[in-house]
């Protein structure tokens, strides 16, 4: 399987530079974690700071750096945009972690006119969001990752499909890149097996004897054998609709009316495809350009606009009464996104409807008249908690009244 690995190094930093291009001329440190002990999430490569380092220590080394608190939701959203664009190139994309994706590109050459064109499209999927990605192409997940590490932006590294060439490419790389437990890596260093070439020169049985299953896997990986498959993501279908008020609305009644109209429209689209929505994301844009977002995950997927409307308005009524209400100014636009589309929950109906209950009653009356005792019986709980089995349930006659 030919796999392309897309690696966006310093994704948080690149996100911040897209948001504020003037930061590009300065050293930047992005931190996260608790206020009492913040740590470095990402930093300009010139700083040589490592992720996880204490922020105080980092600032003492680079007092001139601009320090920014991490906006993880923003980075995730930007990465999600990249994944969406990659899904437009191939339907087999694995989102390995924020900044790392794998794409199966077998068969795409015929579609796009060659492997180079396919790689160009993958590259474009990242550059159009303002990111510089490293791209590696190889016959397997692990060699593709190693190729991406060696690649430079706009200069992808492609490995040939034969195992010997992959093995030669991997040989000088450190064993620390192998996707194994730290314990196994430490043991390799203890045996002076520092590069993948050192590992490849060992016999598989010797490695297996020392490291168990990890030893075999390591040997296979460094010899260009990677049997792992991609855990591809399924593209989710969503229903998006927006309603713009003719003028900003400040009254609860008008807002409720607008939300209802919007939800009616969106859920009609859901019903048309015989689905139900599992998640609802509502966004209100206010006249002062502020946004208010509300996300609700339904316990069971629903296609009921009435239920969704009551959920939204109950929440809105609660928050507008609080002192720190996020809806502080008139609402101009509301938009809704319905996702996690699935099948609506099946509801079990009663055994008999009202009409049939009447029929049953008549039938019982007739049977009683004919047989003197009712032949229809039902199981009833008498003492279901009893330790004595015959006391728990009993058969009782069903009689008409």
């Amino acid at each position: 399987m030919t796999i392309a690995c897309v690696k966006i190094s310093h994704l948080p930093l690149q996100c911040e530079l897209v948001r504020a291009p003037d930061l590009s001329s300065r050293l930047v440190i992005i931190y996260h974690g608790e206020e009492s002990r913040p740590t470095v999430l990402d930093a300009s490569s010139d700083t040589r700071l490592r992720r996880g380092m204490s922020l105080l220590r980092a600032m003492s080394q680079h007092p001139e750096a601009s320090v920014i608190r991490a906006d993880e939701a923003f980075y995730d959203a930007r990465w999600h945009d990249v994944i969406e664009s990659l899904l437009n190139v191939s339907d087999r994309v694995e989102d390995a972690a924020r900044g790392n994706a794998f794409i199966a590109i077998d068969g795409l050459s015929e579609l796009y006119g060659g492997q180079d064109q396919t790689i160009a499209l993958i590259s474009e999927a990242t550059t159009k969001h303002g990111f510089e990605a490293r791209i590696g192409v190889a016959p397997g997940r692990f060699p593709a990752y190693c190729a991406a590490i060696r690649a430079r932006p706009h200069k992808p590294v492609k490995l040939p499909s034969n195992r010997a060439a992959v093995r030669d490419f991997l040989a000088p790389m450190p064993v620390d890149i192998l996707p194994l437990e730290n314990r196994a890596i430490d043991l390799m260093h203890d045996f002076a097996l520092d590069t993948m070439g050192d590992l490849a020169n060992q016999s598989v049985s010797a490695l297996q004897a020392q490291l168990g299953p990890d030893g075999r896997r390591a040997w296979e990986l460094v010899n260009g054998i990677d049997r792992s498959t991609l855990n591809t993501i399924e593209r989710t279908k969503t229903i998006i609709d927006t309603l713009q008020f003719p003028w900003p609305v400040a009254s609860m009644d008008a807002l409720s009316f607008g939300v209802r109209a919007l939800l009616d429209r969106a859920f009609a689209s859901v019903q048309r495809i015989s689905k139900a929505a599992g998640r609802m994301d509502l966004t209100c844009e206010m006249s002062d350009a502020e946004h208010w977002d509300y996300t609700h995950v339904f316990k069971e997927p629903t296609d009921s606009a009435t239920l969704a409307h009551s959920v939204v308005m109950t929440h809105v009524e609660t928050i507008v009464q609080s002192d720190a209400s996020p809806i502080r100014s008139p609402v101009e636009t509301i938009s809704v996104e319905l996702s996690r589309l699935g099948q609506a929950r099946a509801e079990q109906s009663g055994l008999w409807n009202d009409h049939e209950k009447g029929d049953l009653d008549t039938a019982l009356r007739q049977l009683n008249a004919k047989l003197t005792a009712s032949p229809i019986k039902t199981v009833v709980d008498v003492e279901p908690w009893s330790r004595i089995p015959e006391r728990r349930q009993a058969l009782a006659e069903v009689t008409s009244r």
Partner: protein
Amino acid sequence: MVSNPRKTPSIGGSYQPLNMPIAVNVTSTSDGQPISVAENRNGRSVPSKVENVIDLWELDDEWWRTESIRRRYYRLLMESGRVMTVFKDLSTDEWFCQEY
């Protein structure tokens, strides 16, 4: 008067307990462990060997009454592969079959 549309047929007064004990012939060892149980197959009583005693527990209830309930239950794996539950009435030394 308008009839109640939600009214369902009611349950009468006569009850018939479910899962009543059924008397069975059990051969046991001197210490009371069952070794064969007469299983009912097509109306005939056929002795079936006990392969293994899976579980064993005692029930001692209603001791405040004149006739208290004292039973020793055995969950048995039969030679035929069937799992069945029998108990020995410790008051009368009679054996019964009953799902617990």
